[in-house]
């Protein structure tokens, strides 16, 4: 264990994670507007260009955005070392991430070489810088916990997802120079999606949960076998998809095993929350329960016959399962985490300032003041409502506007909660620094 760089107070400036969180909420407000004005034909199947744009606004604009912002903050707490030159890394990679996500989404609906090149360069350079900076911390041997190992595997998945994404974009822009025709195989698109969903997002959620669920919710720990082997098993199964392609019968078996394994993780945290001893109500747990229950439902749906999907969802099995995974599962977990992270971050930054000036502690707001319980509950109600409207839209696409309006309300509220936390931070900061 190397302690040369260890620092428990190496938190990045609060502007680093918050810029990611604020952008994420804005991206989904923007997505809601796009859905509102795109009409019902978007929901015909998952290959519709506008739906591809919407999917990437969710995955890049919201899910990855929040996860990347949270990692900057999480590393110093869990590993004792933060990202070097964090302000520069965050400014450059975040700006390029925003530009790249917008360009990529635009390029799906309005194909143009220049937009493809902008998306390729922005996302390519932005992700490379971010991955390089975070990997530099993760390769240090500060802590060998399962969370750090899981984060390394998630980062490895992200590398693969980005490379495939770059190849898809490169195939559109670099054809005269390099032959990337092999990438047109739809199997690579599925691998890109599965690695992004279960490798990057799924393994990261798993790795972080091992630490934060028992800690912040005071539950028993996850089973040791799960903590030790689940991340590895998921990644190896995902890599198997390069051999047994997703469309093949072998690939379908691999996907079924991935779903079953990930269900075990979901059942585990659902069980842990049942064993929680604290009686004080916590909305973030209800978000976790919604997510866990949804994933079990998703796994069951995967084994339903095609006839069922034809009858209920116009045969759009892939679209329905992806929508449940992204919106019911990942978005729920991210909102659960934001409900905890936003006040926690604000408090930790202010509390750190009080370490050198103990009398300033009187100006520290309590956690409840930073995010009111009733505000968190309203976010949950809005999310449950928007989840219902999504299912309605998937069965009757003419009601898409209802989903768009529900999303608009939910993510405007989320943005308000984040901005409110930031405003209270600045107010308290003034008092604390004034007390010096």
């Amino acid at each position: 264990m190397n302690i040369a760089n260890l620092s428990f107070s190496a938190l990045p400036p609060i502007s680093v994670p918050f810029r990611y969180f604020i952008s994420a909420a804005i991206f989904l407000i923007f997505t809601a507007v796009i859905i509102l004005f795109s009409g019902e034909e978007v929901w015909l199947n998952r290959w519709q260009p506008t739906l591809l744009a919407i999917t990437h606004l969710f995955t890049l604009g919201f899910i990855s955005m929040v996860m990347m912002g949270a990692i900057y903050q999480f590393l110093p707490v869990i590993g004792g070392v933060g990202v070097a030159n964090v302000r520069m890394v965050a400014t450059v990679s975040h700006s390029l991430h925003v530009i790249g996500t917008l360009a990529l989404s635009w390029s799906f609906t309005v194909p143009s070489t220049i937009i493809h090149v902008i998306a390729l360069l922005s996302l390519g350079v932005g992700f490379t810088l971010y991955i390089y900076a975070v990997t530099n911390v993760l390769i240090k041997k500060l802590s060998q916990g399962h969370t750090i190992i899981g984060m390394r595997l998630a980062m490895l998945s992200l590398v693969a997802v980005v490379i495939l994404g770059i190849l898809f974009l490169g195939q559109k822009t670099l054809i005269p120079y390099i032959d990337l025709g092999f990438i047109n195989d739809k199997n690579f698109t599925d691998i890109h999606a599965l690695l992004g969903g279960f490798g990057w997002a799924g393994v990261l959620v798993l790795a972080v949960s091992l630490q934060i669920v028992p800690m912040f919710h005071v539950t028993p720990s996850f089973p040791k076998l799960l903590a030790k082997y689940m991340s590895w098993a998921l990644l190896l199964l995902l890599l198997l998809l390069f051999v047994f392609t997703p469309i093949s019968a072998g690939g379908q078996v691999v996907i079924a095993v991935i779903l079953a394994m990930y269900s075990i993780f979901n059942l585990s945290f659902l069980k842990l929350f049942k064993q929680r001893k604290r009686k004080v109500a916590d909305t973030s747990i209800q978000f976790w329960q919604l997510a866990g229950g949804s994933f079990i439902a998703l796994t069951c749906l995967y084994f339903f016959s095609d006839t069922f999907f034809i009858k209920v969802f116009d045969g759009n099995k892939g679209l329905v399962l992806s929508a449940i995974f992204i919106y019911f599962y990942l978005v729920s977990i991210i909102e659960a985490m934001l409900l905890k992270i936003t006040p926690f971050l604000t408090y930790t930054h202010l509390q750190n300032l009080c370490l050198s000036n103990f009398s300033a502690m009187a100006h520290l707001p309590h956690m409840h003041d930073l995010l009111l319980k009733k505000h968190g509950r309203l976010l949950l109600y809005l999310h449950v409502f928007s989840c219902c409207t999504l299912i309605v839209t998937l069965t009757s696409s003419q009601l898409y506007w209802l989903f768009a309006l529900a999303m608009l309300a939910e993510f405007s509220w989320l943005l308000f909660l984040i901005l409110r936390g930031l405003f209270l931070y600045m107010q308290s900061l003034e008092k604390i620094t004034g007390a010096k």
Partner: protein
Amino acid sequence: MTSIPEFMTAKHRECDEFFIAAENAVADNNWSLAKQAFSQFSQELELHFQAEETILFPEFEQATGITQGPTQVMRGEHQQMRALVADLLQALSADDKDGYIGASETLMVLMQQHNMKEEMMLYPMTQQRVPAPEALLASVVEHCQSPVSD
């Protein structure tokens, strides 16, 4: 014989148990039970802090030569937690449920992120770096006056 990280982590969990018992009693408006559980919690917590500040941290500092780094941050956080414990005691004396729950959530978060840093890094490093970890553990155990499981 258990190790320093194992023993100290178990102590963290023990404190959590008393803390939750007090918080649950407040949530149920059972003030006498709350006061009893809180008293156990604050005593256990203080013993734990003292064991770290007077025995464990000085050994770590001597073994690594780092006196202004992680242990200094941990000491500062101990002071902050003591201040929140005083707030909780005040709310408890006034039977102030909202005041108690607000401060207890804050202490919970502060305590858990503090524990995470100690459990993930400081304790394993202490175990690795001090010349006689068994003797150090024996002193800590003696201070905490708790039996150590094999």
